[in-house]
């Protein structure tokens, strides 16, 4: 008994290891991921506040500056209408991000719900959902988007083509559904799910309260990866004349139209939008990969 107080004192003197700051850990473990996040953050800032960083209005035509080479006035040169390419890239990031985020969120969201439902209910429901997913997966991603965008035409709401977002989201759905189902299947056999069932919780509650949070990691990874895919798809569709229309500033659109006519004379018309697309896709892909490495416990063993 005499030793008891001293033992307590000794215990209280033990300092628990400080929980590491997750952001700093991420930066330390995934420096490339952190760098890509910086690129994404810059892009998001430019997309949200283009008027603060853009030197010109992206729609301003200046026939006296047609096909101008990069200069102090126009850092990245001008296009066939004398429009400032830097400003069009900055405003184009808004188009890319809005469509990229919205399409990826829609496609990944629906895909996740389908994937979890498929894993949870199993049997016939699983069979039907997976055959539907198989059908969608049978089409190459660009072909499926092309079919949908051609069938739906355009519906512009607040300057955004909603049907374009849907067209890009649809090919994302089966891919996310398949991955999330795989993760959800392993969660579905966990004892706490059995316990929730035994406690009489509703299916909705079990899915959203107990299963969904446990498949967040693969979902987030897919979500970020598909933002890159959606940006690329939007650029491809715009390049093919099925996305946004001129004079809207959009990266894919900047590569088509007059750029095809003048890229020999003014290569900056295609180089810089191409770099912007590549950088954005690279950044989102890298960030997604880093997030996977950071969140996946298997990579920590």
């Amino acid at each position, binding site marked *: 008994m005499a030793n008891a107080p001293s033992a307590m004192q000794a215990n209280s003197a033990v300092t628990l290891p400080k929980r590491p700051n997750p952001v700093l850990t991420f930066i330390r473990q995934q420096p490339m991921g952190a760098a890509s996040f910086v690129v994404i953050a810059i892009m998001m800032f430019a997309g949200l506040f283009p008027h603060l960083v853009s030197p010109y209005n992206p729609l*301003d035509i200046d026939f006296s500056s*047609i096909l101008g080479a990069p200069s102090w006035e126009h850092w990245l040169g001008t296009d066939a*209408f004398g429009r400032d390419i830097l400003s069009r890239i900055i405003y184009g990031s808004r188009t890319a991000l809005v469509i990229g985020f919205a399409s990826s969120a829609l496609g990944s969201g629906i895909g996740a719900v389908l994937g979890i439902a498929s894993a949870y209910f199993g049997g016939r429901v699983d069979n039907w959902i997976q055959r539907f997913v198989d059908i969608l997966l049978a089409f190459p991603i660009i072909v499926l988007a092309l079919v949908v965008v051609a069938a739906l035409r355009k519906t512009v709401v607040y300057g955004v083509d909603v049907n374009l977002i849907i067209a890009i989201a649809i090919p994302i759905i089966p891919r996310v559904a398949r991955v999330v189902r795989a993760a959800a299947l392993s969660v579905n056999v966990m004892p706490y799910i059995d316990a929730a069932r035994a406690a009489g919780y509703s299916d909705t509650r079990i899915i959203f309260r107990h299963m969904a949070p446990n498949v967040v990691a693969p979902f987030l990874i897919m979500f970020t990866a598909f933002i890159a895919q959606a940006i690329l798809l939007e650029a491809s569709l715009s390049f093919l004349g099925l996305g946004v*229309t001129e004079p809207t500033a959009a990266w894919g659109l900047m590569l088509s*139209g007059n750029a095809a006519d003048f890229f020999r004379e003014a290569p900056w018309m295609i180089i810089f939008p191409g770099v912007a697309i590549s950088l954005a896709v690279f950044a989102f892909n890298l960030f997604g990969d880093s997030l996977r490495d950071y969140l996946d416990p298997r990579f920590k063993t």
Partner: protein
Amino acid sequence: MRKLVLGLIGVAALSLAAGPKAEAQQPKRGGTLNFAISAETPQYDCHGSDTYATLHFSSPFYSTLLRYNLNKFPDVEGDLAKSWTVSPDKKTYTFTLHDGVKFHDGTPFSSADIKATYDRLRNPPKGVVSTRSATFADIESIETPNPTTVVFKLKSVNSSMLDHFASPWNCVYSAKDLAADPAGPRTKINGTGPFVFVEHVKGSHVAGKRNDAYFKKGLPYLDGFRGIFTLQAAAMLNALQGGQVLAEFRGVSPADRDRMVSAMGNKLRVEESSWTLNLLVLFNTEKPPFNDVRVRKALLLAIDRWGGSKGLSRISTLRAVGGVVRPGSPLATPEAELVKLPGFGKDIKAARAEARRLLKEAGHEKLKFTLWNRNLAMPYTPAGIFLVDQWRQIGVEVEHKQSDTAPYIAAMRSGNYEVAIDFSNLFNDDPTLSLTKFLSASKNPLNLARYDDPEIDRLYELQLREGDLNKRRAHIQALEKRLFEQAYQQPILWWHRIVLSHKTVMGWKMSPSHNLGQDLADVWLNQ
């Protein structure tokens, strides 16, 4: 750039130097001409079409009564007609036809075929579309006193009638075929032209072979032709450079010309001309606020055509500033007069200030609307970008909606649009042809701006019946002024035609219209 300019000068000089010598060469028989057609016709019937895609496809298979002499454009010469006379009162046209002409199916051609063709053009039977019924509304009767004579009697004098007879759209069909199926020419080809139809592979090409029984002895020179559908300009240019096609007869942009000149050097022939084509901006006058002349006029005043012409001519086929008649042609409004009309003034600051005032007065300072346009890169997209920019400068916000031709035309014809970019595709400079577009909707179903204006109709009639050139010019200018003051519709810019062909292609004649000279009878290959 300097190299390119020098190259262009070199090629032009070579063309000039080689041209007359080459043209003096004796035509050679044989060979197949592969040429590009940058659009595919939805049907074969010339009478119901307005697109060059139908003519570049169908012209080699058909003849017309008269045609334009492209060596002396706009003079008219006979095609199926050997000669003709016009009565002193200018109301009777008598044509003597070539003898011994046969349709490709062997049926002998006669004046009855001309009568059947023109009856179909002026009064199409049910289920047949003729976009030229208004053009031939002055014909009272067509008589065929013998197989080689046809007599057209007019209700009243029509100063454009000979031009109408020379229209490339008046393909002559067999009376026998039309009696069997009046709509048959939409899907079947049987003409008297220099080539016989071989095949149409959709999405690929149309092919024809020499008509050995062609009534013009010694023609055509070619064994056959193949019109290859190359809908993408880049694909067409690559095919031209690679020799898969030897020409594209519609026209290319200045950038395409420069690229091909630098790539092909003196193998390439470049021919340029002003073009009987323009793009127009038109307002749906039935839809508010475009039923208010102040709003329409404000939008026209905001367009800096003179500045736009300088820039757009470098990057597109748009070039000349002009009114309703092709600038530079005999009845066109001179620049000194043109600048006095709304939308053509050279003081753009003053014009835009007036535009803002008009919008304010009309209560539409923050005007927003959708501009309908075709999704054709050249020159529709540059024109759309230009207009959006011009209107933005008076505080107007425009959504640029580009669509395929079919939904675009459906929207135009149903009135389901606010403001649109339209085109005027002409084959000559006769004002009657271009002015028909502006007649009241009640007289002309193709008036897409959907207005009725008796004053415009009156002035149209006056110019149509006027034989004196100066008086006719005055009527045309009065009509033009009325049209622009009311701001129903207005040309944006006129096109500039640039045709590229391999120098081995001989005998083809350049003209201000891409609708003319496409029967290929005189074309030969210098190989």
